[in-house]
């Protein structure tokens, strides 16, 4: 019987710790079938017996074809349970769901990626896609802010990005080892010269970050339709029925999580 709520069986292929609270999981669907996702989309991950949680896909579809990656922070029941799982354990996957970063419509543009903390997880899928398809895009600029050096995600990949794209990083609080920029992510904006007509900004971070980063983007002259953001909300069904993810009248799992700033400007509950 056809059901919107039936997950596909999947297996954890690999678990890699990233920080004290985040881990990277490589997931393989039964039959090693590709997930078929686009950068920015999410899946609903089931830990049978505990529940289901919405998690953004962090791998680019241009890299892994027989599996995909999820970057997961342990915050609640389901994510804590996943953190206790090992390679070979069974999970359920529904999706991919939601709107995606418009990698197709932004061809030819300069891309300004602005990632705050855990926001790097969905953004990574588009950064790596853009790197793999460099000829399709103009400049690739990445601004990444973390709370502290110990909380930086994807450390090895960040080093690669230093070579492959225009990469700027900052931390809110330094430690003894840190030699880079110190300050919130908005402090990186003065370091970048942009052509506002050519640039599209892709911004993902914690709720508190958006207002400030949007101000910086507007100061640089980027148009509202060219600022792409991803908004999280509480999600249960992922298919536009259960109602939890609403921002005013908009179901984030259906019309989001990726939005153009111009689309959500009129939604009072959005930012």
């Amino acid at each position, binding site marked *: 019987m056809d059901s*919107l709520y039936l997950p596909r069986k999947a297996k954890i292929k690999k678990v890699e710790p990233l920080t004290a609270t985040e881990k990277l999981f490589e997931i393989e669907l039964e039959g090693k079938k590709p997930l078929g996702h686009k950068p920015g989309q999410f899946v609903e991950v089931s830990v049978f017996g505990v529940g289901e949680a919405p998690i953004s896909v962090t791998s680019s579809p241009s890299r892994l074809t027989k599996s995909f990656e999820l970057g997961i922070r342990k915050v609640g029941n389901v994510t804590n349970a996943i953190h206790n799982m090992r390679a070979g354990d069974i999970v359920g996957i529904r999706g991919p769901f939601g709107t995606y970063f418009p990698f197709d419509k932004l061809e030819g543009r300069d891309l300004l990626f602005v990632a705050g903390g855990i926001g790097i997880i969905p953004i990574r899928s588009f950064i790596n896609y853009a790197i793999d398809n460099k000829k399709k895009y103009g400049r690739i600029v990445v601004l990444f802010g973390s709370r502290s050096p110990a909380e930086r995600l994807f450390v090895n990949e960040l080093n690669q990005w230093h070579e492959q794209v225009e990469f700027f990083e900052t931390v809110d609080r330094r430690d003894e080892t840190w030699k880079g920029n110190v300050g919130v992510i908005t402090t990186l904006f003065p370091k970048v010269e942009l052509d506002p007509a050519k640039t599209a900004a892709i911004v993902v971070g914690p709720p508190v970050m958006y207002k400030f980063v949007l101000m910086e983007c507007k100061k640089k002259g980027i148009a509202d339709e060219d600022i792409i953001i991803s908004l999280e909300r509480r999600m249960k069904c992922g298919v536009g029925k259960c109602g939890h993810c*609403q921002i005013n009248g908009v179901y984030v799992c259906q019309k989001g999580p990726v939005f153009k700033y111009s689309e959500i400007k009129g939604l*009072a*509950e959005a930012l």
Partner: protein
Amino acid sequence: MRNKIISKGELAPWVNELAKKGNLIGVREKGFGPPAGEAGKYEFAPIESAEELRLDYDVAVTSPKKFFQPSKETLLTFKRGGDFKLNAVVEAESLVIFGIHPYDAKALSQMDKVFADDNRDSNYWEKRGKAVIVGIDPACASKWSFWDAMGAATVDKGFDLWLTDLGDRYFIEVGTGKGEKLLKHATTSEATEADVSARNDARSKLATLCAGDRKIKAELKDLPDIFEAAYDNEIWEKRAEKCYSCGSCNLVCPTCYCFDVREEIDLDLVNGRRVRLWDGCLLESFAAVGHGENFRGERSERFRHRLMRKMVYMNKKTGELACVGCGRCSSVCLPDITDPVKVINELK
């Protein structure tokens, strides 16, 4: 399909015939049988004989939506471990639902739309597809009812049969072939021009049933704009000061359909199921996420959200106002803050 007439005397035999099949749901008084002390309240429940059926009721405590979206429903069963099993559960039984009022039929049509559009929900539709809907014009209204003001005194679709009381007989509007089939157990005659006339007369009196103070001071077509313009009005904070966030309004509303999804696991830690349960946007944790952020943390925001859904957001989705004037939320709200009539008239 031609409309029919059934005499009052022939109604009971027909209902008893339907009850014999064991799948007749109708309206009965809650005081009928245990628990006692609920006289004067009505509910949709299994009917075993025609004498239980109360077609003269004002409003049922909850709407018949519960037969298509139960308050608790299993979505999946699973078996963890080496012999891993996972199955979707979609259960449905044939039902005849007898005695639906027009405002509940209107609400049901809206539920049909939301569970069909943008991802068809088979858990709802398997049940809905197996139901035969027999509606009836209201005989009276509760002191909270304002379905006339909300344009829900009559419906012209969303039913299989519709009854109108003409005194010594009922006019039966045949809506679908499914409804017509149901009549094969009934002794009916063809409706005449005179019957149609009598029915129009009877319907013209429906407007007098809702109490005089249950009128709204605005045009229905203006309600979405009125509420949208009132988004930052102080009315929400003022009224929500007394809000318990109990969610009773969500619980009884025929167009509220939000649900929570939870996991259950047996003591063996192997067998379990995923269920969905009615949820309500007035409840505090409705928009709260794992790391502590609550995207609708203020009571005034949640209180406003429900009324915005009824008057603005769902209107954009279905083309209709989602408040059908049943009066249930008004009657259950302990601090009496959510009565849409009072809110509309205060905003106007």
